[in-house]
């Protein structure tokens, strides 16, 4: 569905070259839900804008939905849907009219567009909002309206740019369901960007991790997590003076890597969290080290990200926004 090789984009800003995307290779098969994960500034939006014909690549080639991105952008546009972060409807317009007008730009008749639009409104729980102005809708409703607009021409491939950013947890979970059902009910291929790990984890068959304008890892959420190796042990020290002692004990566990000290926590990785936990508790007890908390957990995608990029996705979220600004 998407095959890109060496896709790159360089911007010129005040005589300085900014390499927003340095060379992305990616393949997405029909019917997949693929997550494109990375912090702000990593090149997510730039890549997405290239794949949706909004931005011309400075290098590389790609076929999207069977059409060449460079030589047949109109063919690509006909076959894809794009739901951007910034929305798609005028706040003062009426929802239904925006949907129908959008469909007409794909050559659909008003009658056909109205029928299809109303059906999408039912599927996306937007019943009764056909005449409403988008400015009077809730954030979740507006996002679903954007999705209805993006799907009105029944695209085989849909791009969702940060679909749940700014939504409350309930609206997010609801939107995830709608996104999953796109594939289940119509076999739509979904390519979505996100900087939420739980979103990628819950929704995607496969994840591509982008950092500094290049793909640094790809695989299923489980494959990526198993790259981290083992489970994560976290011990919160009751007395920070004893952290070194706790770290020494944790480091002596079978197969353990050197633990890290983060604030009042000692964090280490071990192959088998359950067994290690028991041994660790015994050791702590023997040496009289006081702890206020202890846990063993499966690695999250955040751990994967930390391992791949040396940055936590949460911390990285705020940093380096410059290159991601829509251009």
């Amino acid at each position, binding site marked *: 569905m998407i095959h890109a090789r060496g896709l790159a984009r360089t911007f010129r800003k005040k005589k300085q070259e900014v390499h927003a995307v340095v060379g992305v290779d990616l393949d997405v098969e029909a019917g997949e839900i693929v997550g494109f994960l990375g912090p702000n500034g990593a090149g997510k939006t730039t890549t997405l804008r290239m794949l949706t014909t909004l931005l011309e690549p400075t290098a590389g080639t790609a076929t999207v939905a069977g059409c060449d991105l460079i030589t047949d952008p109109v063919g690509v546009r006909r076959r894809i849907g794009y739901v951007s972060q910034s*929305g798609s409807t005028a706040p003062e317009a009426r929802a239904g009219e925006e949907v129908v007008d*959008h469909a007409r730009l794909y050559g659909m008749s008003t009658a056909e567009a109205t029928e299809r639009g109303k059906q999408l409104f039912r599927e996306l729980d937007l019943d009764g909002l056909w005449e409403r102005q988008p400015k009077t809708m809730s954030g979740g409703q507006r996002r679903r309206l954007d999705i209805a607009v993006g799907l009105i021409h029944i695209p085989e491939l849909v791009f969702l740019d940060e679909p749940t950013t700014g939504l409350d947890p309930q609206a997010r979970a609801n939107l995830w369901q709608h996104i999953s059902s796109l594939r289940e009910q119509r076999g739509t291929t979904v390519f979505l960007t996100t900087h939420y790990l739980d979103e990628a984890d819950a929704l995607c068959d496969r994840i591509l991790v982008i950092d500094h304008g290049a793909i640094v890892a790809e695989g299923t959420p489980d494959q990526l997590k198993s790259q981290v190796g083992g489970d994560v042990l976290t011990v919160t020290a009751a007395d920070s003076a004893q952290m070194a002692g706790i770290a020494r004990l944790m480091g002596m566990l079978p197969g353990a890597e050197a633990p890290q000290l983060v604030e009042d926590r000692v964090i280490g990785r071990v192959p088998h969290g359950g067994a290690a936990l028991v041994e660790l508790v015994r050791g702590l007890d023997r040496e009289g080290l006081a702890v206020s908390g202890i846990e063993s957990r499966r690695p999250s995608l955040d751990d994967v990200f930390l391992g791949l990029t040396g940055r936590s996705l949460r911390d990285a979220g705020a940093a380096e926004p410059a290159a991601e600004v829509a251009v």
Partner: protein
Amino acid sequence: MHTLLRDTWTVFARAMRMSLRNPAWLVISLMQPILYIVLFGPLLEPLSGQLGPGNAYQIFVPGILVQLGIFGALFVGFGLIAEYRAGVIESQRVTPASRTALLLGRVLRDVVVLLVQGTLLVLVSIPLGLRAPFLGVVLTLIVIALLGAAFASVSYALALTLKSEDAFAPLLNAFVLPVLLLSGILLPMTLAPGWLQTVSDVNPLKHVVEGTREFFVGGYDTSTAWWGAALTVVLAVLGWAFGVRRFRRESS
């Protein structure tokens, strides 16, 4: 071609519908030309002897029409910035719709609005004392439709480039005031001292205004009228080309 027309119609109908639904916009845009005529026109009546041939309204109404065509159209970009921010422009650009249609449909809406305003302005002036040949009025409305299309395209292109009201507003103000003062729109430049006339001679809009004033007194075959018409066509072609170029470019 068929797609271009259909897409243009879709974009035009959408823009028109949204304009008509905004009652405040409707009242303000119709009141403005009337205010000019009713509150400023009478000031010129006692001066009409010094202003040249025809009565005060034959001089004043064409000027106000041109002003409407240029400066009304220049401000349409603000609406586009709002649409851009709402994501509408980008969502239209991922459709297979013709890029030209995305501009043309909006410009057509502006031209229709302009023609309605212009016609209203002429009608309101008649009871106040405007006497002008029908053909001259029609030719003038054609001129302002062309000018309006050109300046609306320029406005949209600049808005799409700047994408911010804060950058767009000062740019417009820097342009509008000197051009307005040097175009003889409010008072004919024949009243000006020599140096000021010379400066205003390089302003094509001055010649456009003078041309439409000729139309209003029936001087269709004068060189002033021809110059005005020719410059209008040149401005229309340039403005339109500038707008289309910007809209066709990728990565906007």
